[in-house]
């Protein structure tokens, strides 16, 4: 079971996000980026499959600030190989970025599975996994929370709503958009990541070709204009708690 895992960096939304002077993009001067959480789950699912069935896991990513740390961390977790796509043009959308990734992934085939997060916080134009699947002519399904490989097909669990899931038989090779791995993503100590940096190499491949123009244009990026805001209960935690208890009592909730 050989798996390619496509990873990408996204802004850490725990931090404050500022809009740049152009009013259309993020101010990147103090931007902290982290691995897309769903991609982290995709990596975990790949590692779980490797533990169960053997094979190799290769992580692939477009060049971005801090991407090396993320790729070394993936190797420290158990990925066998890391490939970084370099000479990445500016102004990519989800669609054009996914097409670039598909070109690089094509050079890394054959593989049984290509896994990536079902979506990312900054996706505006489609879903990467679906675009990659189409570009490579492979089957696709997304919102995946479990994978069992059974020879030429995989049994894949997809989430719907209301806690209902669906079981699908997917012909391999295939591209899956992962919502959550079967287990929480594993933790890796920083020391192990540092050791990887000393002993392992990240391979690089330049972007292969043209992916065409973007089919969307961002005209404005801004904080949401809100029609309502919570009434804030002020004071020390003790005082705020007392105010809340009063409100709950007024409504007969306690």
């Amino acid at each position, binding site marked *: 079971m050989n798996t390619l895992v496509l990873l990408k960096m996204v802004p850490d*939304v725990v931090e*404050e*996000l500022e809009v740049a002077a152009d009013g259309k993009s993020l101010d990147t001067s103090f931007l902290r980026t982290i691995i897309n*959480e769903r991609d982290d789950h995709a990596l975990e699912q790949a590692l779980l499959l490797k533990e169960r069935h053997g094979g190799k896991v290769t992580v692939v990513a477009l060049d971005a600030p801090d991407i090396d740390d993320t790729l070394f961390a993936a190797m420290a977790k158990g990925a066998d190989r890391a490939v970084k796509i370099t000479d990445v043009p500016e102004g990519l959308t989800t*669609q054009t970025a996914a097409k670039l990734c598909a070109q690089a992934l094509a050079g890394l085939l054959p593989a049984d599975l290509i896994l990536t997060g079902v*979506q990312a*916080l900054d*996706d*505006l*134009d*489609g*879903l990467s996994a*679906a675009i990659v*699947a*189409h*570009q490579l002519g492979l089957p*696709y*399904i*997304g*919102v995946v929370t479990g994978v069992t490989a059974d020879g030429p097909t995989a049994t894949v*669990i*997809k*989430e*719907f*709503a*209301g*806690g*209902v899931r*669906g*079981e*699908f*038989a*997917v012909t391999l090779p*295939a591209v899956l958009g992962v*919502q*959550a791995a079967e287990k*929480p993503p594993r933790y890796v100590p920083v020391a192990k990541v540092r050791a990887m940096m000393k002993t392992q190499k990240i391979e690089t491949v330049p972007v292969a070709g043209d992916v065409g123009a973007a*089919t*969307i*244009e*961002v005209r404005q*990026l*801004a*904080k*949401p204009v809100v029609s309502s*805001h*919570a*009434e*804030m*209960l002020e004071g020390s*935690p003790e005082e*705020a*708690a007392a105010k*809340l*208890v009063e*409100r*709950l009592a007024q*409504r007969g*909730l*306690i």
Partner: protein
Amino acid sequence: MASNIWVLAETWRGQITETTLELLTLGRELAGQTGGPLEAVLLGDKSLAAPLGAADNVLCAANVAPTPEAVAAALAQLVRERQPQAVLVPWTNLSMDAGALAAAQLNAPFVNGCKDLKSDGGMIVAQCVVYGGKLEAAVAATTAPALFGVLPGSRPAAAAGNAPTVTEVAVSVPEARVKFNRYLEPETGDVDITQKEVLVAVGRGIQQQDNLELAESLAAALGGAVCGSRPVIDQGWLPLSRQVGKSGMSVKPKLYLMLGISGAPEHVEGMKNAQLIVAINTDANAPIFNVAHLGINADLFDVVPALTEKIRAVKGGA
């Protein structure tokens, strides 16, 4: 290029979904701006078409399996043949795959997470929720036909009105490489959170599993149950049966008290109809404060013990 506005009718276990009817309301507004008719695309049996009367026409193809691949192939084929200006697709776990695949096949834009759409100078511009609800983007589709993934709750559901006009259309669907086997029903947990009047919801801000005790104590004092947002379920700290949001349950309790939940749209979708929403969060700019009725901008680890104690005191004295 026609000015037709299409809505992909989403069917779930033999019924048209509420989100489809919401998209028909939004689609009708948009069709008013583009001057085109509003059409629903039903990839299923025409007996399901009755609720789609708000559309001027229903394009119906019956031979399509309920898999993203089949729905996408059929939708892409119809779009190629008939060239609508815009296709509104429910931005749900059920339909987002098909929309994304169809757009990839058409090399068309698929604008994600739209809460509003309008026609502006011949282009359709979407208001999109990004970065977990922290920002919104106005995004124009620069080519047509374009697909738009529209969030549930964008508009009220359209009334069915008269029986719709149904046009049966033929599509050829490729051999299936993704086959549906069966539904897996939710495991019946210890608690049915959809039936609880009081819910204490925990998010990423709870930090670790041991801290769930704080929420459990608070829920016990309030006579409610604990539920959670996606990160808490992904960590395995609460079972799937306790998840609120897009993939989980939709709840409407009398009180929904949120601890350390930022308010990503996927979560808000499942709880926005609660009668009283209270959020406790350290981030004063967390989007959840735009949804909650009452807010406390503080560390939950400071507030919750005091809150639990005071509730116990009130109840004990009653």
